[in-house]
């Protein structure tokens, strides 16, 4: 039983990293949103499994929040935003797919090396979880860096936050209040960013952040 518990937790956390990789190479916005929704579903499954094995009912609430907000509400509203902005046909990558994937692999290796070494005495399950969480976090950051479109940067930010929740769920004894407040802060960040997207769009007729730079008079 012990082995199975560990394996399933490992599987779910590993899939989260895998889905992060999938997000890295989506160059169409709708497809990116779909993968992001899938990312959130995997996260909520992983958190729910943690709730089961840690026997911590409040983690079910976390899983539910993740499912409702991140897998349903946010992707749907981003869908609507993209439709209203009319940018669903835009294709973008600043850095090519291959270098991005290679960099992502390097980051995963780095986080494994750092985390496994830093937590040598910890519970093996928590160790793996933390290593995967750091990978997801770094991949989200990588995505924010390599994208140019504001919507995909928002998605990158949300997936980064998924990594944080994974880490929080893995650490035993995380109070519910913290998770709820994190969830709300993400929601508020989402609302603020959404409003800003429209404002930017109104002013500049695009959500390509490069245009903003040009407007500030920066030389490229």
């Amino acid at each position, binding site marked *: 039983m012990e082995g199975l518990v560990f394996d399933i937790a490992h599987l779910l956390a590993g899939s989260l990293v895998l889905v992060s990789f999938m997000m890295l190479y989506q160059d169409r916005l709708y497809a990116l949103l779909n993968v992001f929704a899938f990312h959130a579903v995997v996260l909520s499954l992983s958190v729910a499994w943690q709730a089961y094995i840690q026997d911590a009912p409040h983690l079910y609430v976390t899983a539910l929040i993740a499912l409702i907000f991140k897998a349903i509400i946010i992707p749907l509203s981003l869908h609507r935003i993209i439709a209203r902005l009319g940018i669903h046909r835009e294709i973008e990558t*600043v850095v090519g797919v291959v270098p991005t994937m290679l960099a992502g692999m390097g*980051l995963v290796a*780095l*986080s494994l*090396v*750092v985390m496994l*070494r*830093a937590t040598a005495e910890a519970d093996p399950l928590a160790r793996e979880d933390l290593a995967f969480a750091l990978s997801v976090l*770094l991949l989200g*950051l*990588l995505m*924010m*860096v390599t994208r*140019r479109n504001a919507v995909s*940067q928002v998605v990158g930010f949300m997936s980064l936050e998924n990594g944080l929740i994974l880490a929080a769920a893995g650490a035993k004894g995380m109070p519910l209040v913290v998770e709820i407040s994190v969830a709300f802060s993400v929601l508020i960040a989402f609302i603020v960013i959404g409003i800003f997207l429209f404002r930017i769009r109104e002013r500049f007729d695009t959500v390509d*952040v*490069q245009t*903003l*730079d040009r407007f500030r008079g*920066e030389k490229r």
Partner: protein
Amino acid sequence: MSDIHALLLCVAALLATGPLAVALNRWPGATRLCYGATLLLTIAAAAIAAGRLFGDAATPLTITLPLGLPWLGALFRLDALSAFFLLVINLGAAAASLYGLGYGRHEHTPHRVLPFFPAFLAGMNLVTMADDAFCFLLSWEFMSLASWVLVMAHHRVDDNARAGYVYIVMASFGTMALLLAFGLLAGPEGGYAFAAMREATHAPWLAALVLILVLLGAGSKAGLAPLHAWLPLAHPAAPSHVSALMSGVMTKVAIYGFIRITFDLLGTPAWWWGVVVLIIGGVTAVLGVLYALMQNDLKRILAYSTIENIGFIFVGLGLALAFAANNMAGAAALALTAALFHVFNHTLFKSLLFFGAGAVLTATGERDMEKLGGLIHRMPMTALFVLVGCVAISALPPFNGFVSEWLTLQAILLSLGLPQWGLKIAVPAIGGLLALAATLAAACFVRLYGITFLGRPRTAIAAEARDVDLWSRAAMGILALLCLLAGILPGFVIDGLAPVTQYMVGARMPAQASVPWLSIVPIAESRSSYNGILVFIFITFSSLLAVAVIHRLASRAVRRAPAWDCGFPDASPALQYTAGSFGQPLRRVFGTMMFRAREEVEMPPPGDTSPARLQVSLRDVIWDTLYAPLANLVLFLAGHLNRLQFLTIRRYLGLVFFSLVSLLVVLALWS
């Protein structure tokens, strides 16, 4: 109520005087009220400290207030060392307050000075009573900031803003060094109370590091070369009574910090500490006075002379460290007494001289000596008191400066008993430097006094000067009297210092009060002794006799006016000896190397009737080689890092990302 309660009450009252001055901003009597309050409070504090020093100094008083660090509280302590420095500080502060009663009336913007003056005094008092690192650093920084505000009181005057800037940069640097020193002393357990630091044993390398940090921290505040650069800029920029406080008193607080840490908290010294302190002190003494000789600005000369005196004091402290490291407690007590005596003296005569400079400034509006002259006829009282200050600071008997410098040299003579060859060679060399510095100081003050007060007025404004008000003259008179008293009765001062040396180096100088005829005998009757009263009587008698003889013989003799008059009396006052011409020989001897002094004579071509001109250019080598490259480096880096303010969003994200990844890589490679 014990003494420490009373002292803390005085400090609290001083702190309350500042806001009171703000509240009474528009009331015309605010100046008088504020300085009157600080005068009474500082006299009270000085009396308490003196009572403690001459009474029961051996048992320290402590008190813990529920302020500061939550788990520690604010610890205060009154022992012999703090009592002595409290006495010095409050004596100087009381004189400055008395002077301020008169001088403050000429202040155009009193609301820029009045609220901060008592705060500055309170800060200095608190530093000497603090008994934990947090309290100490907080009071230290409070003192620095209050004095910085006072330096910036006349911020629209040329160069004052720059002086304030250099000052605050150096003050922050010094506090940082002290912060690191205390961090090292507290150790990993965080024993920030001084009691814990005293108990702990410090590894030799750690103690050496702390010594260097303290030299940087306290030394930059005191004005040790090469960290003195701010001092001659900032001290003259403040109003004169504040200049007196900064030069005469605040530098002493820095010395207190040095003594407290090296002698009290750091444990047994190593012998080479003495060498380091001695060399820095000797170089500082000579450099300070050489700089002073090149200046024409009254207050700036006094500020550079402060650097020289600080060097003298540090030589005494270095000797005390060297003797203490070799278990020569008696000699260490002599050296420490000499240093502390000089601390006391310097507070007296430097405050007096700054008051005199302030009086000249009030009377003429000039600080440049080349525009003064002949003031002894217009301001006789001020001239007399400044003369006393000049004689005292030039270390001439029968005034106090002679006694402390004589004691320092006596301690140097004892250095032959030291076992280390490094010290045996270094100490006499330092003694030579001190002798040079003392002589040059005398030349410097002959120049200052002669050009400013003697001769004939060089400008109309100097010719119309009037002596200053009664308060200012009273402050100068009292200090001059104290200089004389400490000079002719040095035994009482030395006995007063006995508990301090007993506490710091575990020995005291032989009791002087019981020596017949009020002589002082530092080591033994057979080696050397000095009797201030005898010298005083002799000097008074012989000079009176000389005056009588000259008047008898010269005044009534037939005088004939010379035909050619040597070209002097009726020509322009510009033909007199000037400050520049007085300094020229010394500039040629020392300045060519030290200041890269260059003289150029511009001769008009033949047939041209325009005057020839002599151009002298001086450069500050320390500023050019140490400060300017550092400032340029900072400007260069700042100029290039400025681009970081204007990155695109993605580059900011990238910056965060790459710094995070590189930190993680470091972590991965490290473990």
